[in-house]
Structures are given as C-alpha cells and as structure tokens.
C-alpha cells in the first residue's frame, strides 16, 4: 500500500501569483528511501510541507487536488495529528532545539501527546540509541557540535515512532564526515526499522547511493520519477540541471568512449571502482 499518495496536487502560497507546486501526482510505497531533487525554487520544500499538513494548515494559501499520508487525508486533519505519522527534520537543527538537555528535547513531543512515563523512557532511550547520542543525553543541546545537534533533531522525531521521516537538506551546515554519519544513521533506520524516508537534497554525490526512488522536480512539477539508476543516466536529468554524482558521470563518459563496464549505472564511487577493477584486472 502506498504510504504517501498525491493526485494533481497544486498549491499557491498566500499572495503569490503562481503556484509553487503544480499538478503533482506521486506515490511512495512503505519502506522506500525517496530522494527528491531539482533546481532551487523547484518546489521540493513546499511538497514536503504538504506531507504533514504544514501546507496548507500553517502556511494557509490554496491547495487543490488530493493527498493521503499514512491513510489520512491531511487536508481534514491538523498538523499535530500528523506528527505521530510524519516527522520533519530541517536544514538547521538549532531552530528545532530548545530544552535544557538533549534527553528533554527528545522527550518533548511525547510529553505533548501524553505518553505514560515508562513508555516515554523506553521510546526516548530507543531514539537516543538509534542516533548514537545516548551517552551524551544529559548535555545541553547548545554545547554540542552541529552534527550532534542534527542527531538530536532526528532523535526527537524518531521518538514519536513515525512511519515517515521527511528530511529537508539535513546536513547542509555540517562538515562532510558528520554529514556522511547522519546519512548512515538515516539509512540504517530505513533498512532496519523499515521507516519510509523522504530526503530532499541537491548533493547527489553524497546521497544517491542510499535511494531506491528518485523524484526530479522543476518549476513546481514532477519531471522524472522512478529508479535512480535509470533517471541519473538520462540526458534529460542533466539538462534539468541536476548535479549527477561524479562516479555516475564518469561511467557515462567512459561508456560514450566505448569502454564497457557492465549495464548497471553506478551511484557511488565504490560501485564504479568495483566495475573498473573488474574490467581492467590483469588477464593471463
């Protein structure tokens, strides 16, 4: 069953002259790792805001079409009801953190929905463990690194045990190694816990390898959708202005010159290196 389904979704912010998303019809299956990309201002962030009802309940404006998330029509339910099903993580974790300790920040959402103490303890500990911050749980979220802060933001969302986690460029303020560690945490949650992940990113070099469903947007509309390997190999994707991972690009350049490395388009340096090692290995 699809966990997110939209039909002809079109949305215009209040006072805007044209819609930010236009006629978007997508289907996300449970357990998928979806990557949404496209040029700046293409409507990625706005689309994500429809998944938990922030659009239109908080932002107002005009929404047309249909949207169902976890079996719920978001138009008919409040954002706080959606919070149990969909967790949102933003670019800058500082905007999301406020409590005196990491643990309290992570427990906040649960306190709000009145979860019993024992259960809360269990869920908070689980979320802290999943994100690798259990050992620093008593520290203030403001005295830790940006990478750790983003883990706290993810743990806070995770404690609610949502079916879907939506992350809007969650690592753009982090150094590359911290970013990679965050993506590994998200990938693990997707693989091991079966949580559906929606990740908005420009930097496919870092993220394409985790995804099994790619959505390319441009001017508010979905232009391409499906298997990341097929989409990233297509000329159309490059023309829209999507930053193709260097490993994928190099594979294509070599293919054009007649070097056969196999049929599978690589999404990471590991995959390309393996293909090259195989193709160029010494033969007797």
């Amino acid at each position, binding site marked *: 069953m699809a966990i997110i389904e939209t039909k002809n979704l079109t949305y215009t912010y209040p006072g805007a002259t044209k819609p930010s998303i236009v006629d978007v019809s997508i289907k996300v299956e449970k357990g998928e790792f979806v990557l949404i990309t496209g040029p*700046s201002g293409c409507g990625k962030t706005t689309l994500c805001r429809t998944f938990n009802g922030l659009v239109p309940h908080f932002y107002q404006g005009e929404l047309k079409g249909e949207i169902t998330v976890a079996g719920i029509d978001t138009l008919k339910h409040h954002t706080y009801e959606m919070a149990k099903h969909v967790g949102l993580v933003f670019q800058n974790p500082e905007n999301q953190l406020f409590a005196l300790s990491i643990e309290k920040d992570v427990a906040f959402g649960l306190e709000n929905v009145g979860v019993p103490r024992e259960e809360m303890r269990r869920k908070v500990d689980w979320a802290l463990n999943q994100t690798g911050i259990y050992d620093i749980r008593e520290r203030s979220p403001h005295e830790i690194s940006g990478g750790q802060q983003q883990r706290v933001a993810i743990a806070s969302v995770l404690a609610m045990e949502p079916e879907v986690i939506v992350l809007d460029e969650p690592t753009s303020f982090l150094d590359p190694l911290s970013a990679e560690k965050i993506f590994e945490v998200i990938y693990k949650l997707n693989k091991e816990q079966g949580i559906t992940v929606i990740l908005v990113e420009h930097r496919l070099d870092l993220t394409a390898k985790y995804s099994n469903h790619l959505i390319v947007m441009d001017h508010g509309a979905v232009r391409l959708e499906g298997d990341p390997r097929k989409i990233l190999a297509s000329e159309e994707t490059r023309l829209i202005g999507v930053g193709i991972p260097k490993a994928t690009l190099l594979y294509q350049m070599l293919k054009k010159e007649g070097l056969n490395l196999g049929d599978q388009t690589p999404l990471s340096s590991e995959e390309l290196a393996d293909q090259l090692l195989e193709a160029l290995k010494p033969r007797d």
Partner: protein
Amino acid sequence: MIEAQDIRYAYANKVEALKGVTLTIKDGEFVAIMGQNGAGKSTLVKHFNGLLKPSKGKVLVDGVETTKSSVAALARNVGFVFQNPDHQLFSETVEEEIAFALKNFGFKPEVIEKRVTWALNLLSLTQYRKTSPFLLSGGERKRVALASVLAWDPSTLILDEPTIGQDHEQKEKLRQFIMQMQTQKKTVVIVTHDVEFVAECNPRVILMKEGKIVADGEGKEILTDPALLELSSIVLPQIAQVFTKLAPLGFPKDVIDIYEAKAAILKQAREKGMLK
C-alpha cells in the same frame, strides 16, 4: 594582500578559536579554507575585513593593520558574504538590498542603477527585483547577499559557505564567476565544506583544525590525502575515492578532476587492448 601574523583570538566566553595562525594571501589568489565545524575557519576570515580584531598577533590588509582601520573603510576593498544570509539582509526589496551599500559608498544614481541590474542578472535574480528578500528560498536569499556585495566590486571577496543550498547550475555559475574574478586579478577566499566544489575549482586549500592550520597547499594534493582529510572531518571527493581504490592497477592517486580521470582510464584500457 592579506597577512596574518601569529594571530590568536578568544571569544568573550574565553574559548580560544584561533591558536596562532600565520598565513599570507597574495593578490589574485583563490583560496579555500576547509575543516571541521568549529575549527576556526569563520573566525579567521572575519579578521580579514576587520570584523574581528586579533587578541594577539597582527592582521594586515594591503599593508595596513586592521586595528588601525575601520570596518567601513576595509569593506570597500574586502567584501564579505556571511554563511547565513539572514544576518545581512534587511531591505524591503531585493533591489534596495543590492543598492544599499552602493548608496553608502556614494556612487551616483545612474551607476547604482547599472550595477544593480548587472548584479541581479549575474545571479539570476532579475525576476525578484521588486520582491522582498524574505519571500525567497534559502538558496535565493544567499544569492541576494552575494549580489549586494558583488555590486560594489571589492578587490577581495570573502565567501563563507557560498554553495550551501545552491543547486548544480548555481554552483557552476559561482565557479565561473570566481574564475572570471581571477582573470581580473581579484582575490577570492571561500570557507567551505563542499569538497566536490573545491575539486572542480582546484584552488589553494588551507586545512584547519582546532584553531590552527594543519595543511596548506594545492587542492589536488590535499584533497587526495585520506589521513589528512579524516583528521579534519572531510571526505575525499568522489573521483579521488575511485582512484584511491584503483591504486592496485597502477593508477596515480592524486586525481580529482573528472576529465583527467577519464583520460587516465581510457589510456590504460587502450594499452590493454580493450578499445580501438
């Protein structure tokens, strides 16, 4: 020319962000300062336009010590674009934002008009001329902040994380723009985590860790040193990752450029009779 002589800097909370940094950036150089969050990168570049003054040591811009000059005077030559655009935007329209500094520097109205139009066009912002900067996306606001500095044509440009939130096309434009500044002998200093962007531009790279410089050299040399990068919480660019793994086949390790990579692989494939 920017010269830092053994500078130290401590914030009010006594945290020492710079622990003795010495470097020289010559006119016309393109430098990328990289390193972990909290390594002191932003603190260092804020010394280059006098926003911060060193607790110990000296910073000289074109031979003048920053403590003997005002930020306003330094700004005419050293333009600074912040990491977070919201720290510098305040006008009602994009156009007014870009014109603001030009008015302050006393440019004539017709010059201001020309420069604003030029900057809007350069950063693909013309359609937002009359829009409030606060209605724009994060990536677009970042471009407004950049446009407002470029408009007064400083001889040195400092960009703190210029590629955050920028799509592929905008990054490519930024790269071309920096190259263009280079041909005009202007100095560009960027603080960045974006290894792929640095790999494409191949500037001089300065690597920082815990308030000190740990490496200073050609991008190609530093971005292909896994041990050094790990120390600074940076990962290898994708092409360098591939070539690190191809070492058993006799490939060089210091490759970051995709065209160089392609040529090296095709050469070996030809030698092995795999291609005509």
